[in-house]
């Protein structure tokens, strides 16, 4: 049951991603991206990362995607028209060089993964043996919170500065238009 669901999510993610890249219409593509992100969040759940999945939906779907849509709207008014006029086909033709490259990487990685499949890393084996895996009943949110405040306190603080800077920067970069 679980595995079927996993496959379903996986197929959904990969399928929409494939469709996404071949769509000519960018608005539709961004919608598909939305689906991919959801599917990915679903996959995170199977790795027992519930908090990550939630964050994914919150940040990506709530933030990133909306941002992209806005950006698209701002930039592609004329382009949209052009595309609609000229495009007879629904899908754009893939670029063979990029395809070759991507497939090359994929083949290598799949080979690598199958090679790796034969020898599970020691630390994972140990975790399995010692039963120190995360199990569905763990309260991940609490654990993560604790670790943010201890082990990862420095990155946590730094990223706050980082976000502040990104905020200032992004706002500065876009403020310009109003100045003009």
């Amino acid at each position, binding site marked *: 049951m679980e595995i079927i669901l996993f496959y379903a999510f996986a197929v959904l993610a990969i399928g929409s991603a494939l469709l996404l890249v071949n769509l000519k219409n960018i608005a539709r593509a961004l919608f598909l991206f939305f689906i991919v992100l959801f599917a990915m969040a679903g996959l995170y759940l199977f790795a027992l990362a519930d908090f990550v999945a939630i964050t994914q939906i919150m940040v990506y779907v709530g933030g990133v995607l909306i941002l992209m849509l806005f950006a698209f709207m701002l930039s592609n008014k004329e382009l949209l028209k052009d595309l609609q006029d000229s495009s007879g086909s629904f899908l754009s033709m893939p670029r063979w*060089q*990029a395809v070759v*490259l991507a497939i*090359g*990487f994929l083949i*290598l990685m799949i080979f690598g993964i199958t090679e790796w499949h034969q020898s599970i890393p020691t630390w994972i084996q140990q975790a399995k043996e010692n039963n120190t895996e995360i199990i569905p009943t763990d309260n991940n949110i609490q654990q993560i919170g604790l670790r943010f405040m201890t082990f990862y306190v420095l990155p946590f603080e730094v990223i706050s500065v980082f976000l502040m800077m990104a905020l200032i920067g992004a706002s500065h970069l876009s403020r310009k238009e109003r100045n003009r």
Partner: protein
Amino acid sequence: MDPVAHISPIYTALIAVVAPFIAFLYQAMAGKRDQSGTISLIGIVCSFISGGITWLAIWNHPIAYAEINWFTIGASTFKVGILLNNLSALMLLLVPTVALPVHIYSRAYMKGDPGIHRYWMYLSLFCFAMLGLVVMDSLLLMYIFWELVGFASYLLIGFWFTRETAVQANKKAFIVNRIGDLGFLVGLAIIFTQFKTLNLVDLFGETGLIYQSAVTNGQWVSPVNSMDQVWLTIAGLAFFLAAMAKSAQFPLHIWLPDAMEGPTSVSSLIHAATMVAAGVFLLATVFPLFNESALIFIAIIGTITAAAAACFALGQYDIKRILAFSTISQLGFMMVGIGIGTWDAALFHLVTHAFFKCLLFLSAGAIIHEMAHLKAHSQLDFDPQDLRNMGGLKKYMPKTFILMSIASLALAGFPLTSGYLSKDSIIISSFEWALSKGDFYLIIPVSLIIVSILTAFYIGRLIFKAFLGELRILDQVQDKLQGAPLHEASKTMLIPMMLLGLCCLFPLFSLNPVSYHDSWLMDGLLLDEYTFAPSHSAHLIIPLILLIGSVISWIIGWKWYVQHKYSLNSNSLALKAAFNQGYINELYQWVFVDGTLKIARFCYWFDRYIVDSLVAFIQFIVLSLSRLSVWIDKYIVDGIVNAVASVAYWTGNQVRLVQNGKLQTALYSVFLFVLLGLIYLIFF
């Protein structure tokens, strides 16, 4: 014996050498301000006197020898010093003795030339170099002076440097001499390598190193080193190459006729009497070095030179060129003297030749001087040196005629002259040498005899054409020839010529006018023993042959050149004889005169076009080579560098393809490289 014995001959020799040098320096400083040449004259007088004193002190006395350290290079110290033995003392006397009259002569001959200050300067430089050459005690120093005389000769040949032919000639002279210098240098290198010294006393002295070395088992072994025996021969030939160039031996003789572009006084001193004889002097000095094959080679070259030059002389019309070829021919004689091992005879001939050839040149100079005078006077354009324009000069210049005749007789080897003694000594010795060697070698003395007769003939021709008969140029200048534009040479020119004339006679050298063995000179230089047995009959027969041959040749020449044809008078008694004579004459004409002339013309042609063009060809080859190397330089050597640069640029260019400004091209290339790198690093 002599009152000057308490003065060391070394110092007198030093004075003899240095006096002209001081004159040179003075003249160099003074420049145009002093055109008289008095200082040069004083210099050479000093040399003459000290040379004489030195000669008195050294001749037939033990050698004098002094040296000081010059410089040290590596383990060997080179010294500068003076070596006085009979040979060098003789030369030390000879050179100023010839130079002094020439200096006096020049005062008149060169008068009024705008560059006369240079003339005196160069002349003094030459005297210094020549005197230095003869007294130096080391081969290295000899080499230095050897080149220096060449340099002085270069300057003097090109004295009239605005003349194209003169500068061509001096360049040719210097470069041909350079070839010889290379031989000298190689000889030095071989000697130094073999003996670790270049000092003449150490090398050729009583117990010199040269006598301690021997050829064993194909190795030439000296006390300090040994090398393959072929180097012994090469050393000999190398020194001979030096002498060949300097003494104008075939085929390096080509520079000497051209060198006649210089003033005649210079030709007389340098290119007849002294410098060209330096080669003989050198060979005499290093004589112990020569082995059998080198000597034979020298003898052969000497013979060829003597014969060829004599033939060439027959075909000449330029008075100085005839004398130049004659000089070459006589130098050939001396070389034969060296080659057969009788270097004393060669030296003897050198000395006598110096006097009579110098006199010949000076007389020729006087003639040319007068002819040039005539030319200027008559405003005609003709060559004052061309024999065909002369004739009958006896009328105008009787004293010159007499002096020149004496010198010519000496050249021809007529009895009672010095030439008779010295020339006979070489020919007779060569005959004896050939007898001891074998029949085949007889070709050398026989050639020499023929050459001797030819010599008599051509010098006779010169005398006849110049002095006897009618002045041929007169036809053209007839109407303008008012008064007497031709007259005897001035006293300043005549006196030195007379002095030299005296030196051409036998008493100066031997009280016995027919036997060279009684000559003091031969006594002084006499070798311990010749390598061959004397032949008494030769002493009688050969001079006779020579004498008769000369006389016959003169008679023919007289008839031919003075009377223009053989008289066929209707004297009946003499008719048959005349007929026979005519027959013989025709034969002579056909066989000897035409034949000789043809050979002469051919030889000259050969000389002009083959030997000379051989030089031209070599020149062409060298120039082509140089052009080729420039081409290589430009396109190959530089080309490689440029190609490397181009490859670098090209590579840089290829890199730029990625940088076409398109973001995705860049990204694509990056990941392509990652993928390829991955594949490479994993699978290879």
